[in-house]
C-alpha cells in the first residue's frame, strides 16, 4: 500500500467569488459553504469567518478541526463510510491543503468544547493557532437533542472540509510525501506495533472507523496509511486538550514518527485499533484482544497512545500489563490531571508495569489568556466548558483557564512539545 500525500502549502485564507487555491492562498466562497452546511435541516443557521495565524482572534467554542484534502488518484474517497463511499483508503494520491483547517464552532453541545487563540499566551499550546482557519459557525434548530446536534455539526464540518479540499485537485503540490511500509531487510531491527485506542464511551464520546461506531468494533489491525488517509473520524466531545480531532487522526504523530524511524531504527509492523469503552467487561475484552493481536503479529515493542482521561487510564494500564505478560515492551503516551497546583497524583489508575511513560502535560495547569480583538463564536461558554470555572472570564475578555480548555494542548498522540516534569 503506497500513499502519496501532495502537500500544498497554504499560508493565507481569504474570501473570494470562487473557492480555489492560488499562490498559497485559499479563497473561500462564503455562500456556497453556508448553503452546504444548511443542507441538513437540523441546522437553522450558518456563518463563516476566517482566522489567520498571528491575528488577535479567539475561536470558541470549538468542536472539531478538519484538514481539507482531496483524493486525486487511487481507490477510496475522503472520509469513507461517513462522507465518501465505503472503500479502502490509504493508497494513490491525496492532495492536502497543509496550513489550512476547517473549524466547527457554535452553541455548546456538551461542555467539552474548546478554544483556539490565534496569538498571545494561548497560541503555543494549540497546533490550530498555527493553521489558517475557516471557522464554520453552526446554529442548531430549537430543541435539537445534544446527540443530534453533535451529529449535524460533525457532518457539516466534514462536508465543508471535503468541499474546501476539492480546491486542491488541480494544484501542483509543493512537496510529495510517500508512505509505504516497505519490507525491512535488517532482521535485527525491533518489531514495533502501534496500539491506537479510540474513545468510544457513548454519550457524546464517540469515534468512527470507516463509518462504524467504534463502540461496536472488536480491536482490529489496520494499515497506517488508512488512518493517514481519513479512515477515522472524530465525533466526540471529550475535553478540548486531549480529544483527537479529525485533523489529529490524519496527522497522527505516533504513526508519522514510527514511519520516520521505519527501516532505520525499527521495523514498524502495523497499527492495532482498539476502543475505550465504559464497562469493566468491555475493557477486559478490548485489552485482551488488542494484546493478542500484538502477539500474533510478532510485536516486540509497542507505542500505546490514549484519548481522554480518567476512565481510559484503566484501559491504558490493562493494555500495558497484558502486553508485558506476553513479553512485549510498551511506552505509553498520556497527559496528566495533577490539579491546578500540580500536587496531586495524575492518573486514575496505575500499574507497576507502566515503567515507561511519556507525559504530554498537566491539563489542569492554569494559564492567563489576554483579551482578543475579535471573538469568533461566543465567549460566554468559557466559564462552563471543561477547564473553565465560575469567574474565569474577566470583564475585559481575558481568561484564566486550565489548559484543558485549549484545543489539542495535551495531545496524547504526541503531536505537541509540552511535557510535565517533576518539580
Amino acid at each position, binding site marked *: 500500500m503506497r500513499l502519496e500525500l501532495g502537500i500544498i502549502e497554504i499560508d493565507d485564507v481569504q474570501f473570494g467569488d470562487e473557492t480555489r487555491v492560488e499562490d498559497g492562498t485559499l479563497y473561500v466562497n462564503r455562500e456556497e459553504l453556508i448553503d452546504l452546511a444548511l443542507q441538513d435541516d437540523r441546522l437553522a443557521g450558518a456563518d463563516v469567518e476566517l482566522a489567520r495565524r498571528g491575528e488577535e482572534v479567539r475561536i470558541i467554542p470549538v468542536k472539531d478541526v478538519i484538514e481539507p484534502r482531496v483524493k486525486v488518484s487511487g481507490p477510496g474517497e475522503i472520509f469513507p463510510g461517513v462522507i465518501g463511499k465505503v472503500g479502502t483508503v490509504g493508497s494513490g494520491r491525496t492532495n492536502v491543503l497543509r496550513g489550512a483547517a476547517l473549524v466547527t464552532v457554535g452553541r455548546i453541545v456538551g461542555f467539552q468544547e474548546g478554544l483556539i487563540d490565534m496569538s498571545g499566551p494561548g497560541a503555543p499550546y494549540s497546533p490550530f493557532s498555527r493553521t489558517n482557519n475557516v471557522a464554520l459557525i453552526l446554529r442548531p434548530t430549537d430543541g435539537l437533542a445534544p*446527540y443530534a446536534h453533535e451529529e449535524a455539526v460533525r457532518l457539516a464540518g466534514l462536508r465543508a472540509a471535503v468541499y474546501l479540499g476539492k480546491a486542491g485537485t488541480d494544484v501542483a503540490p509543493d512537496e510529495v510525501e510517500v508512505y509505504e511500509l516497505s519490507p525491512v531487510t535488517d532482521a535485527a531491527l525491533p518489531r514495533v506495533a502501534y496500539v491506537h485506542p479510540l474513545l468510544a464511551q457513548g454519550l457524546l464520546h464517540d469515534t468512527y472507523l470507516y463509518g462504524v461506531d467504534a463502540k461496536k468494533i472488536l480491536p482490529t489491525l489496520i494499515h497506517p496509511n488508512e488512518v493517514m488517509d481519513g479512515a477515522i473520524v472524530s465525533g466526540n466531545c471529550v475535553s478540548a486538550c486531549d480529544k483527537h480531532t479529525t485533523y489529529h487522526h490524519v496527522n497522527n504523530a505516533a504513526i508519522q514518527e514510527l514511519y520516520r524511524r521505519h527501516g532505520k531504527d525499527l521495523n514498524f509492523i502495523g497499527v492495532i485499533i482498539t476502543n475505550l469503552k465504559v464497562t469493566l467487561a468491555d475493557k477486559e475484552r478490548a485489552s485482551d484482544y488488542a494484546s493478542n493481536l500484538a502477539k500474533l503479529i510478532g510485536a516486540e515493542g509497542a*507505542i500505546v497512545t490514549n484519548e481522554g482521561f480518567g476512565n481510559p487510564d484503566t484501559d491504558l494500564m490493562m493494555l500495558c500489563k497484558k502486553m508485558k505478560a506476553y513479553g512485549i515492551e510498551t511506552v505509553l503516551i498520556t497527559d496528566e490531571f495533577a490539579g491546578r497546583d*500540580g*500536587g496531586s497524583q495524575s492518573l486514575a489508575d*496505575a500499574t507497576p508495569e507502566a515503567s*515507561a511513560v511519556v507525559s504530554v502535560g498537566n491539563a*489542569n495547569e492554569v494559564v492567563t489568556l489576554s483579551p482578543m480583538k475579535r471573538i469568533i463564536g461566543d465567549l460566554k461558554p468559557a466559564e462552563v466548558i471543561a477547564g473553565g470555572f465560575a469567574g474565569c472570564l474577566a470583564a475585559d475578555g481575558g481568561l484564566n483557564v*486550565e489548559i484543558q480548555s485549549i484545543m489539542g494542548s495535551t495531545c496524547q498522540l504526541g503531536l505537541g512539545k509540552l511535557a510535565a*516534569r517533576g518539580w
Partner: protein
Amino acid sequence: MAEKKFRVVHYLNQFFAQIGGEEKANIPPLIREGAVGPGRVLQKILGEEGEVVATVVCGDGYFAENIEAAAERVVELASSYKPDVFVAGPAFNAGRYGVACGGSCSAVSEKLGIPVVTAMYEENPALDLYRKEVYIIPTADSARGMREAILKMATFVRKMGLGQEIGPPQEEGYFPRGLRVNQFVDRTGAERAVDMLLLKLKGEPFQTEYPMPTFERVPPSPAIRDLRSATIALVTSGGIVPSGNPDRIEAASASKFAEYSIAGVDDLTSDAYQTCHGGYDPVYANEDPDRVLPLDAARSLEKDGAIGKLYDLYYVTVGNATSVASAQKFGKAIAEKLKAADVDGVILTST
C-alpha cells in the same frame, strides 16, 4: 558597589548556635544580631552581595512540642529584620531539627512571602512533611557534611536574594517537591516515546516522564449487620444538583462539593433537578435525575423497611477531570459530616 545587599535571616537550633546540647533543647525562640556558627561560613560565601542580618535560635525540643506557636514566634522575630531570604539548618538527619527547619521555613514563606530554603538528609522524616512547600537541599547524614551543605545552600540563597528563578530539581539539585509542572521541550511527545521505546528494547537505561504513583487503598468497612435500623445516605460524583446549579459546581475539575436537603422529596424530577457534570451527554440524567442519584429507589427501600431511614441530606460533586487530591479532600470532609450525623452507610454513585 552601589547595589543594596540582600538581607538574610538564618535559623539554627541551640546546638549549632553554640548555646548548649540536649539540656538547652527547651529554650524558646530568640534572635541574635548577625551570623552565628555555620552562618559565618554562609556570610563568607555571600561576600558583598548579601548579608546575614540575624540568626533565629530555638531549642529542638521546644519547637517539636510547640510547632505552631514556635513557628509563629520565629516569623515575628525574623520579620523585624526585614529579610529578603530565609534559610534554615542544615538539619542533616536530626528529626526534631528537621521539623524546626521545615516548619519555620514553611511559616515564613506563608506569612512573609519571601523565598525560603533548608537542607537535610534524605531519610530525615521532616523531608516528606515539608518538601511540597519548601525547597530542601540534600545533605550528608551528619555534620561531617557541613561544608558541602553550606556551599549548596549559599548558591540557593544567592539566587533567591538576587531574584533569580529557581529551575527544576534535576538542574538545581533540591529534593523534587512532588509537583507536576508543564514546560515546552525540544522534542514532540511521539519522538520522545519512540526514543524511550528503543532504549527499553535495547535494555539500556531510560527515564520515564511519570513514575507510577502508589494508590491509597481504602479497606472496605465491615458489612452493616442490620440494614433495617440503619441510616443510609446518598452521595454522588455524577453532578446531580437543584436546577440552576446554585453553588456553581464546575462541569470539570470541581473545586467543591455541595450539600442539599432531600427531606420530603420522593422523586427527583426534571423540573427541579439537573446534572452539572460535563463528562457525558446530560439528556438522560436531566430527563430523570434518579438515574444518577437513585432517590426513588432508596425511598421505596425505606418505605418497605429494607433500610431504617434515608438521611435527609445528600452530597454531590463532579468527578470529571477532578484531581485525586481534590477528590480525597472532598471525600474526607463528606465522611466527617456523615459520621457526625450518625449515618451508618452510604450509596455512592459515579458516572
